[in-house]
């Protein structure tokens, strides 16, 4: 008995936490690697046009994205090559845009709704016809703040 008591005399042995930093570092690296944009899987090819007079979009959380471009290689057999609209993760038609905007609005608080911006990420080779259809649908639901996504052009022509 005496022996027994002596063993437990020091209290509980401390848990070895020397590997905790390693675990946390592993997590850290995992996040650093995986946070590289996983917004939506793009099903359309979008190469945005270049422009010089561009502005940064301020609030990320208040932006909804509409993608327009020709279907990427995996979807060519199914959907052809004509430019199409993508909302969230699926192909859509212009008619579905009001519904999409309503959903985006419902996800935000009422005070934020007037500041919602729609970012049109359109391929530079798309035709204005499809873009105009989208614009008209946006006007119908009064989503008037839009942003034509483009990259900065450095060279002057």
């Amino acid at each position, binding site marked *: 008995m005496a022996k027994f008591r002596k063993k437990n005399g020091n209290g509980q042995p401390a848990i070895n*936490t*020397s590997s*905790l*930093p390693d675990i*946390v*570092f592993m*997590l*850290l690296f995992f*996040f*650093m690697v995986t*946070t*590289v*944009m996983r*917004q939506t899987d793009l099903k359309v090819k979008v190469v*945005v*046009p270049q*422009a*010089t*007079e*561009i*502005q*940064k*979009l301020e609030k*990320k959380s208040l*932006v909804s994205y509409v993608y*327009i471009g020709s279907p990427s290689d995996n979807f060519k057999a199914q959907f052809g090559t004509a430019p199409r609209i993508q909302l969230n993760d699926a192909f859509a038609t212009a008619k579905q845009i009001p519904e999409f905007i309503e959903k985006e609005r419902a996800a935000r608080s009422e005070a934020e709704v007037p500041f919602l*911006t729609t*970012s*049109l990420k*359109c*391929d*530079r*080779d*798309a*035709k*204005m*016809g499809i*873009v*105009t259809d989208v*614009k*008209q649908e*946006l*006007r*119908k639901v*009064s989503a*008037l*703040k*839009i*942003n*034509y*996504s*483009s*990259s*900065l052009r450095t060279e002057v*022509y």
Partner: protein
Amino acid sequence: MPKKSRSSPEINAGSMADIAFLLLIFFLVTTTIDTDKGIAIKLPPMPEENQPQEDLKLKERNVLKILVNSYDQLLVDGELTSIKDLKRKTKEFIDNPAGDPTLAETPMKAVISLKNDRGTSYNTYIQVHNELKAAYNELRNAMANAKFGKPFDKLNKEQTEEIQNYYRQVISEAEPENIGGTN
């Protein structure tokens, strides 16, 4: 004495986890998914159905008509123009330094009317918008420098408003027509 120096003290790694957590949180917060940039536009509201379309009477000289066809060619006030000249022409139209009777009376009255075909490429459309915006930005900057000695984006609110009221940037977009065949 020699006994003491032999055993090297252990480094306390207990706070290592905290440091790593701090880093982790820092990265979680700051990783920005590629910044989105672009040309900001405000669409005009949809006209009410039962509301009669009021005809805005604008003097011909105050409207710069830009037409873009499905071959991405530009017609500016009846003249075939390349995109390179669009900015210069727009600035001339808005400012009208020579007092030309065919160009805008004052910058405040200037309206740019843009009409494109359904077959116009999106790239051309953006380039046109870009040039128009560039024209206005340059004019606003020039005025800001002349009047307040500062570039436009460094002005305070009242000064900005004053210039924005002078160079108002009214771009009216007509609904495109489907003339040019391919869509």
